[in-house]
């Protein structure tokens, strides 16, 4: 479903993503972890076609995102870290625009919009202008828009920011159900508890390189620590490394 084929991306002289080789099959929920500036957002931007790789290729359902963006986007749903809506459109009008962009017939769009409004409990404010929404309301609407066309691949960048506990539960249940139905989810997050609870596999990225790829159990084995939370494992993993930001800062102080 998702394939990073030796992907690199640099900003000037700085290599933000270095030779990323990763394949995520159908129905998997993959969580990308890493400290700030590790290259997670760059990876996601390449996956959704906002950035082009300096080297390698990103493929979604077999379509190269840089070469065939429209074909790839037909299979993609994207929830960015900062929700972008049209201030002067109502939530319902925004969903209609998204449905139109995916070429949904009118009767299908009507049904899907009603379902997503119900699902994300948007009915109360769906006819208000988006400029009056709180961050959480905007985030719920963006989730509804991303799932409207029932994509094969869902990309989430810090998905829980601004959501209240009830909305977080709705999203978690939905992600589990969708992955069981075969949807692939690629999620970047700092919420380690969520990654531990939901992810089939995790990837830990440090300074543009994927330093660990596997299940939480495999990370435990790798670190040779038993019955420890992902949070502790992650902190130890990212701090103990000689090239970790913490280690470098310590080195600079010395």
């Amino acid at each position: 479903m998702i394939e990073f084929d030796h992907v690199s991306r640099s900003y000037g002289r700085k290599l933000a993503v270095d030779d990323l080789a990763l394949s995520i099959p159908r129905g998997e929920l993959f969580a990308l972890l890493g400290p700030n500036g590790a290259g997670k957002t760059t990876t996601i931007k390449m996956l959704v076609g906002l950035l082009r790789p300096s080297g390698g290729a990103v493929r979604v359902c077999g379509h190269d995102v840089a070469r065939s963006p429209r074909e790839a986007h037909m299979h993609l749903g994207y929830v960015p870290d900062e929700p972008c809506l049209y201030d002067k459109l109502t939530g319902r009008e925004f969903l209609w625009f998204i449905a139109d962009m995916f070429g949904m017939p009118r009767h299908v769009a009507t049904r899907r919009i009603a379902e997503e409004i119900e699902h994300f409990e948007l009915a109360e404010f769906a006819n208000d202008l988006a400029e009056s929404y709180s961050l959480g309301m905007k985030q719920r609407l963006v989730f509804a828009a991303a799932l409207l066309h029932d994509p094969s691949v869902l990309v989430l960048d810090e998905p829980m920011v601004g959501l209240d506990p009830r909305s977080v539960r709705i999203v978690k249940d939905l992600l589990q159900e969708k992955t069981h139905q075969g949807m692939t989810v690629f999620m970047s997050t700092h919420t380690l508890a969520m990654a531990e609870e939901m992810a089939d596999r995790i990837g830990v990225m440090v300074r543009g390189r994927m330093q660990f790829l596997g299940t939480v159990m495999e990370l435990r084995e790798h670190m040779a620590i038993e019955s420890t939370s992902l949070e502790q494992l992650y902190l130890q993993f990212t701090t103990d490394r000689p090239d970790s930001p913490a280690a470098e800062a310590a080195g600079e102080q010395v």
Partner: protein
Amino acid sequence: MTAPALAAGDTRQLSHDAEARVFLRLRAMLAWRTIQWMVRHARLRLTLVALLSLVFWASLYGLFHEAFAFLDSLHAQVISLLFNAFFASLMVMLVFSNGILTYGSMYASPEAKLLLTLPARSESIFGHKFRESLWFSCWGFVLLGSPMLAAYGVVRGAPWTYYALLFPLMISFVIIPATIGSICCIAMAAWLPRLRFHATAVALAAGSTAAVWLGWSLIRSVNNQGITTAWFEETLSRMSIAEHKLLPSWWLSSGLIEAARKDVDAENAWASFIESLKFLALLVSNGLLLQVAGGWVAQSAYRLGYSQIAGEVPARRNRQLSRFDDFLTNIGSRRRRPLRLLLVKDLRIFRRDIAQWSQFAIFFGLLGLYFFNLRCFNYTHTYRSMIGFLNLAVVGLILSTFTTRFIFPMISLEGRRFWILGLLPVHRDQIVWSKFLFSFFGGLLPCSLLVWLSDSMLGVSRGLLVVHEICCLMLCLGLSGIAVGLGAKMPDLRESSPAKIASGFGGTLSLVMSSLFIIFTVMVVALPVHVFAALAAMAPPGRSPFSWAAGPWGMTISVSVVVVVGLLVTFIPLTLGIRAFRQLEP
């Protein structure tokens, strides 16, 4: 229970036409909602904009009517020359303005980020965003150009077909430079991403230098030989480049002149109409061709350019400027240090916000250029003084647009970061005072320099120069007081866009109050010099009650009134603002 999966065929890639229709529907929806919102929430602003536009249009119409009535008696080639020069310079400006608008809407806006993650063609996104920038370009062009062309039609006694062709000709013309600007922007973003600012700056500098050189040489030529046949021929040859037949500006002016031709003979009238239709066809066909080219460039370069720009490394900060900031922070007593820290913070934000300093530099730079050229004209004593007062008003009006657009929203924007300031050992009053001082000193320096430049070039008396400088000082105080005071009294803490904050009720009120204050100030000091002096001159010597008012006493009273009113206008809104800001609960 989640939604059932869609069946195969429930989603599909849209055709070109279907995609264009979706974007048109989106544009129509956005326009409709914006109009609805303005009618409900921004009636004052809407009414003011409509009223001021009407006044502006009518004034321009009157001015052009007089000018065309005068020019109509001269050689017919003058009109053609004027039209060609006017539309050619407008064409160059439209290329630049549309290039900049395209950059903002296609690369820097959050909407672009959304659209690029949807299955939309690059050329459709270009079309959608182009319509937006075309609207901005057309609006200004129609507001400026329509009174001129309507006046021309009336003076020439043009047939109705001229008026029918006016808007099609104007709009089809605008499409050409607008598309060229957009194409240049997309191409530069994709293929010259690092040089785009340099290339634009070099092109702008070259254009400005050419315009200044041409204007300067024409004025010098008038001063040397007056408006003679030799001057006219010299001018024609200098401006012959604007009359090149391959320029769209020439097609437009020729189309307009043909359409306005009034022939008694029906056959000739029909021929003129057909001729102007041919020019319209030329404009439309070239506009459409360029649109196709624009779509093609967008298709091959938009996503690449977006990726290039999104992946840029921010420029490193200038160390010398940081030292200057440190100097400002540490100079003076420790007790006032928090106030200076707040000032330095605002100075840094101003420096790093291109929209702020570039507009500041462009407007004040153009004004300076105009003032610098004032010496070239030989005015009488009365005109010199009158123009001095008008220039003072213009400086004030430009400053008021800046205080409304950039100073008024500062408190609202601070409100969003209130938790930072709230935790600092800074009294709330100091925050408001820091904005006031920033605005006052920031405005005083360029404004007083401009007023001095204007008066020096005009050669007005030293006494009047002092009066103008006092007025300038009071304007800077008053305008800063209004903007900061009202900004603190009516903050909009939910809004993050300064443009939207400034265009709300508070911002509009600030602009209206600022304009009234400027008009009052300039009129009060102009009274003794012009009105009372004229009235005194009309009465028999020594018997006019206006004699003393036109002298130094009258001026002293006028200046005193300006100072008192200026201080009231400064401190009343500021006090109200400080009180409101103390009570503010973000």
